[in-house]
């Protein structure tokens, strides 16, 4: 596959604060690539560097083999769909979409036909004369996409384009965007902080945190083989435990030795062990590799989400079998359900459901000490 854009050792600071730290990223032709990460991790800044609204402090932006660090936005063959669309309020739908063509002095008849073609692509025929301010959010979104696509850019940058839409519309637009990308063959660089959206739409997912790329991979790779505790926790639910590699394909955690499929670690190397909630089988206590007590059960429609206390560590398990609170159960874990990660700066920060609640998710990035305190308090509350 052909590389369209290469970011090489990009570093960018604002007011002395490092926002992007040594970013290296290759973007390929015809790819749907998603930048995924929590708020403030530098996704928008990365897009703005590619679009040309910012220039890197250090590093090179390569477009089709040429350095474009100093090429202004209007000369880059890249277009952006802005988060809040940024449609021109003084122009109607037709003129908004025709905007780039008028700048290039394309003949009238050609403008007419290309705009109509674009409006067909985004299902907005008959809206030509409408004022953009009279459109619904979803319609404005489509105008913005049509406007960005009409000059056939090599790359389309989309900054959380679906964030302002309600859930239903969001789902529709997701599949529509995917369809448009397939139909046009244009490379999409898509920004979101919604992991589900990232997994379902992308060819490649780039997980970012604190200005650094944590992992680049296909959605399946990212989900099944997370690089570190941050990625494991950010993409879906994970139980993350301290473990020790005993040998190739043998790991010990929670006071038990497990067979696994990972190898290539040193003997007795401390590691993080990830086990997805849906990969744990519930068995009778005698048959279990681990034994614990159910502390809570939540019905979620397709399955139950249960929290199990195993030697003080709370696991989250998703199961379709009903178990009761205070029931003693055993856990059975297949070797390929165990994923081993090297220790990282994020070790110990995620993957324990001791104080599982919605608010706790939000403060997942607190410093460890603060975290401990919060956890203890929560424990006390639970005890009462």
């Amino acid at each position, binding site marked *: 596959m052909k590389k369209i854009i290469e970011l090489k050792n990009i570093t960018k600071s604002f007011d002395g604060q490092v926002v992007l730290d040594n970013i290296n990223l290759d973007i390929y032709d015809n790819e749907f690539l998603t930048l995924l990460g929590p708020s403030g991790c530098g996704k928008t800044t990365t897009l703005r560097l590619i679009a040309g609204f910012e220039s890197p402090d250090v590093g090179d932006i390569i477009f089709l083999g040429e350095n474009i660090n100093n090429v202004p*936005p*209007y000369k880059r063959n*890249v*277009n952006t769909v*802005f988060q809040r669309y*940024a449609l*021109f309020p*003084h122009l109607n739908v037709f003129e908004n979409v025709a905007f780039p063509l008028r*700048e290039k002095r394309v003949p009238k008849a050609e403008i007419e036909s290309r705009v109509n073609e674009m409006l067909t692509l985004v299902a907005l025929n008959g809206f030509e004369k409408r004022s953009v301010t009279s459109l619904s959010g979803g319609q404005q979104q489509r105008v913005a996409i049509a406007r960005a696509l009409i*000059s056939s850019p090599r790359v389309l940058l989309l900054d959380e384009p679906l964030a302002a839409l309600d859930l239903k519309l969001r789902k529709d637009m997701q599949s529509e965007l995917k369809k448009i990308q397939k139909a046009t063959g244009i490379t999409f660089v898509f920004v979101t902080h919604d992991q589900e959206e990232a997994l379902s739409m992308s060819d490649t997912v780039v997980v970012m945190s604190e200005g650094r790329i944590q992992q680049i991979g296909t959605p399946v790779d990212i989900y099944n083989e997370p690089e570190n505790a941050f990625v494991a926790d950010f993409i879906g639910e994970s139980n993350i435990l301290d473990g020790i590699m005993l040998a190739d394909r043998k790991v010990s955690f929670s006071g038990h030795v497990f067979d696994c499929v990972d190898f290539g670690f040193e003997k007795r190397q401390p590691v993080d062990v990830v086990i997805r909630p849906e990969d744990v089988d519930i068995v009778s206590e005698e048959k279990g590799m681990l034994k614990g007590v159910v502390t809570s059960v939540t019905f979620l429609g397709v399955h139950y989400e249960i929290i199990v206390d195993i030697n003080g560590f709370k696991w989250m398990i998703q199961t379709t079998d009903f178990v009761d609170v205070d029931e003693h159960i055993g856990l059975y874990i297949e070797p390929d359900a165990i994923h081993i990660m090297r220790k990282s700066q994020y070790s110990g920060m995620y993957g324990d459901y001791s104080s599982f609640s919605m608010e706790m998710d939000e403060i997942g990035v607190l410093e460890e000490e603060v975290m401990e305190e919060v956890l203890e308090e929560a424990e006390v509350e639970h005890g009462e």
Partner: protein
Amino acid sequence: MGNKNMAARRGSLIQRLCLAPYSVWAALFIVVPLIFVAYYAFTDNAFNFTLDNVRRFFTATSNVTDEAGTREVHTYLLIFMRSLKLAVISTVICLIMGYPAAYIISTASARTQKIMIALIMIPMWMNFLIRTYAWMTILQDTGIFNGMLGLLGLKPIHIIGTEGAVVIGMVYDYFPYMILPIYSVMAKMDVKLLEAARDLGCNSFGVLRRVIWPLSLPGVFSGITMVLIPSISTFYISQKLGNGKFYLIGDAIEGQYVANNLHFAAAIAFILMVILLVCMAVMQRSANRRAAV
């Protein structure tokens, strides 16, 4: 539901009570004087209805002597056209200077913007008579301006008493009224729109022409209105800086008033007002039409 309605009604009652003083003020000081102007304009000294005053504005003639000889002219139409010419020139100069200035200020840092706007507004706190006197001393044949030319070894220029001096005075006095509305529209402009334009292929000039300019038109129109109208009816500047040689429509109204011809003064004022209203309506129309495209 009932509570909500009550609250809404009480809100509107309070609103109306709050607005009451303004309504009274507007009636007392805007509507009533306008009625008086109209009443005087269409009556004679005995307060009988007459169109004579209006007719006089359009038909009165006088003889003008200049290098080309003596001609008979329509006195007030000539004065009106002269006022219009000077006002339009001043407005155009204000616009040409004010638009780029407003744009540059709006792109500066927040701190610089505040300082610049303060600098523009400070002269407005000074009485306008004093400002005009200041210009007299600057522009006089032996004034500061010619003094500086002299220091540079240049010949003095005769400015005071020319149309140029009147225009300078008007531009100076009304410049803030041009720059402020344009600036306030530009400062509120969404930077994302400008980025979108650059992203879609516009260089800086393209962004200015295709996005900033059309979006700033409301500011431009209110700037034009706010400069054109006071400068068309100004009388003091022309007397002081034009040495009274350029009798303007404002001077005519004042002159008739001082001469105790209240009815004719009212008629001139009334006609001026109607003309300005028509001009503004036409301008507003074309502005709306542009906005609709």
